[in-house]
């Protein structure tokens, strides 16, 4: 069997808060195979987002090791990690993080451009994905002109544009109402299944978490698998 898509060993994060050191994550152990879907639930402030940032290589741990898509992250600097992510890792954020000056189409084209793809092809791919999430009629609109649900669907299209090997989703429905959230999640799992992407989903929503094959809970800095 090939190496795991993600492997964390003794991953810990401590931050200095005034004179005291505050341990947010303590000795996290986790291994994900390609195509796995994993949910991480926890209460507000339990450190879910911090864990996601560490697992995606967006932040560095205070202790421990992380291997992402077969590459040891600990000895890489920010730039090298970014280069490794490019085209392989997708993100969906709670607050969408779309660029406000760009149209929906341009927002989705962006990660493809970063991989050096041809502009014309990149636009075609982006358009196809936007059609797939039901936004064919809104590709020229800027985030400002879109509803929250529509913005998150643009973010989904952007996340899958590069056919990432692994996707990190941070409270993807956190800013959406129930019905809209459910629609977005359906589309997320649909695209995920279609592309066979490994998925790490952080949420406080138990029902949403239940849709993943593996479920974990983060409490007191420790991760426990159900």
């Amino acid at each position: 069997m090939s190496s795991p898509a993600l492997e964390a060993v003794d991953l810990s994060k401590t931050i200095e808060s005034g004179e005291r050191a505050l341990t947010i994550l303590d000795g996290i152990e986790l291994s994900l195979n390609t195509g796995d879907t994993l949910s991480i639930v926890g209460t507000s402030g339990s450190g879910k987002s911090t864990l996601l940032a560490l697992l995606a290589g967006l932040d560095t741990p205070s202790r421990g090791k992380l291997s992402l898509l077969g590459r040891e992250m600990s000895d890489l600097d920010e730039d090298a990690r970014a280069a490794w992510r490019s085209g392989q890792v997708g993100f969906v954020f709670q607050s969408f993080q779309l660029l406000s000056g760009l149209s929906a189409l341009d927002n989705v084209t962006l990660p493809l451009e970063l991989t050096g793809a041809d502009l014309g092809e990149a636009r075609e791919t982006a358009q196809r994905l936007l059609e797939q999430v039901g936004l064919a009629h809104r590709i020229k609109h800027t985030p400002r002109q879109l509803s929250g649900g529509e913005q998150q669907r643009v973010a989904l299209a952007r996340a899958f544009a590069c056919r990432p090997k692994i996707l990190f989703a941070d409270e993807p429905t956190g800013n959406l109402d129930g019905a809209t959230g459910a629609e977005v999640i359906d589309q997320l799992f649909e695209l995920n299944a279609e592309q066979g992407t490994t998925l790490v989903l952080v949420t406080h929503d138990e029902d949403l978490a239940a849709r993943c094959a593996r479920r974990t809970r983060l409490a007191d800095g420790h991760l426990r698998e159900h």
Partner: protein
Amino acid sequence: MSTDRTSAVRLAWRQIGRSRRDGSAWILLIALVVAVAAVGAVSQMTDRVRAGMERQGAATLAGDLELELRAPLDEKRAAILDEIGVAHHGVTVFPSVVSQNDDEITLVSVKAVEDGYPLRGEVTLRRGDPGSPTKTVTRAPEPGTAWVAQRILDAQQLAVGDTLHLGDARLKIAAVLVIEPDRGQGFANIAPRVLIRDADVAGTGLLGPGSRANYDERIAGEPAALEQVRERLEPTLQPGERLRTPAESNRALARALDRADVFLDLAALVAVVLAGVAIALTARQHASSRLDEIALLKTLGAARGLIARLMAWQLVFVGAIGIGLGLLVAWLAQLGISQLIARAFEIQLPTASWLALWPAAATGAVLLAGFAWPALAQARATPPARVLARSLAEQRGRMWLIYAAALASVALLAAAATRDITLTAWVVGATIGGTAVLWVVALGLLAGIDRLRPRIGNRGGPGLRLALSALARRRQASALQIVAFGIGLTMLFMLVIVRGDLLAGWQADIAADAPNRFLINITREQQPAVAERLQQAGLDADFYPLVRGRLTAVDGTAIEDDGELAEQAGELTRRELNLSWIDDLKNDNRIVAGQWFDADDTGKPRMSIDTSVAERLGVDVGDSLTFDITGTPVTATIESIREIDWSSLQANFYVLFAPGVLDEFSATYITSLYVPDDAHGVIGALVREFSNISVIDIAAILEQLTTLIDRLSLAIELVFGFTLAAGLVVLLAAMQASRAERLREAALLRALGARSSWLRQATFGECLLIGLCASLLAAAIAQVTAIVLAVWVFDLGYAWRWPLWLMAISIATAVIALSGLASLREVLRQPAWASLRASD
């Protein structure tokens, strides 16, 4: 005060405290501080530089004011001057002759001064032979002694220490007079000088009733006191009496001061416009950063009225802090700079007044109210539902009326600060026109870049691709930035060019080969021989014929019969004027009315007069003047009126007749020429050969003018340096306006896998292109405006300066690109995650 109102003030104050971490509030504050400081410092500085220049000019009069009299100052008016508390003393100038032995008679001009002379400036003396060291003094000669020009010593074979026979008096020659500050220009004082004390005049027996003498009272004091002198003395002036400032009595100086004045005003105006651009840019951003807060307050039950008051108070607090800090910076800056100015002009300047800073404070307030308030007031209409959906944005209203009003207020303030409405109108007009041109061309250029993008495709690497896509996609924002940078750069470029032209114009005025000698009294017969000798020595000289005549009638009315006319004509009738004729109009003359003579006019009774003569006599083209030339009346019609550039130091004439009219009268010739130091022998030989020819050395006057212009140039450089610095800071503030957006974008791109080097290349490339577009457009607009200014306002010729452009465009582009790069440093320092969370 109602509870509601109090709570708005308190809430506003607390919000100000909380907004310490709000980037846009900081930028607005910085822009405001820079705006107020720049306007304040520049206007303060221009005031002080102007005061310095006037003092410098005062030296050419040895006083701040000159009261031209027909007799020594009467007791009544002396009492007025004493009462006001200004320093004053009398100067008497009269012609005489010196003849130590009966062989040689030298015409001299005697100047008798009182104790305290000179009130301004200094006298340069020498004890030894020409070439030996000189020293400067600020006192009058001792009674019983005289300071004598070298020409008199040479002619009379005298030396320092000898006794000078002046009328009945015997005076000891204490020193050679090298430069007297108030020598003046022109041919009125062409005889060499003997400077003596007033107490010795009576002993000479030279001044009796009916003697030809000029009496002046020189006055010096603070500006307010001088103003009082003007107010109280002007009504007492009799016909033939005049009150003059240095600028009024010295035309070359007046021109230099005028140009410097316009430049200083321009510098202050540019500071206002730059500040306006920066505040307008940051105010909108600040207002939109308030939207969430407003929505939240509304959700919590705040009424629109409360929110309006809250916004207003916040603005009042930001304004008070910003204006206060700005004034402080302006004050400190001018303190430092006035030290420099004081040193440059070697004078003590009066302390600047806080009150003089009011235009700066008012400019800050108007900019804030005009540009920040409309945006905030509009933000007030934010629907509370924005709390739930940020996409519910502010509605755009019709803002142009408010902006137009704000622009008009700024223009009025600028006019108040510079007291020059024409110049302000030019600058404001050029700004509006320039903005429109910039906007249209910028959008066109960006559209062009977008078209080119697919062709460049993947060839340029990810950095260039990202840069181009950022430009093309954010077309409106990029265009706005190009316009903002463009306006700022246009202003700075314009100042660079005008400054260069101004300095070059002055340098030309005092060019190394400006004439330093006049040869006069050359007879018609001698003229060809003199011309030949000069040509053989390699000296260029143009000869002008000269006939002397006294003005006797204007349009047939005899001046002596008309008291009013006599008063108007003043000294024009008191002394004989030099009348001349030439075929072609000289370069330093410009026709302002009528036509220059053509071939048909030869021999016909036509003349061309200087503007000052036309103004003085109240005559125009078509009127006639009558001159008495050796007893013969000659009447001619005015065919044209000329403006003479006296700063050229060339021989020039108030009245030129059409060629051929004065042929019957005996004329002498005059020439002005530049004699290099090693060619003195040529002139000496010429004078020995033709003993009737007189040489007038104006090297000393030239030297004085050079010193003055050097100091004026330094003042211009100082003020320019400050405006340039202010402009740069404002440009950087404008760059900061797009910083937040860039930070978020960079963080996201990093999360998506962009490398730091790509981000650097992308930002650098984007800012480089914006900078290049802005500076190219600015260069083009500034070039056109500068030509207009040079030709119409400063009355200077214009020269293209490609190296200057190349340098200005490169520097501006580099500064913009590097400041864009600098704004990226923050995001590259922290993990991508932290940047994204911060922008969440």
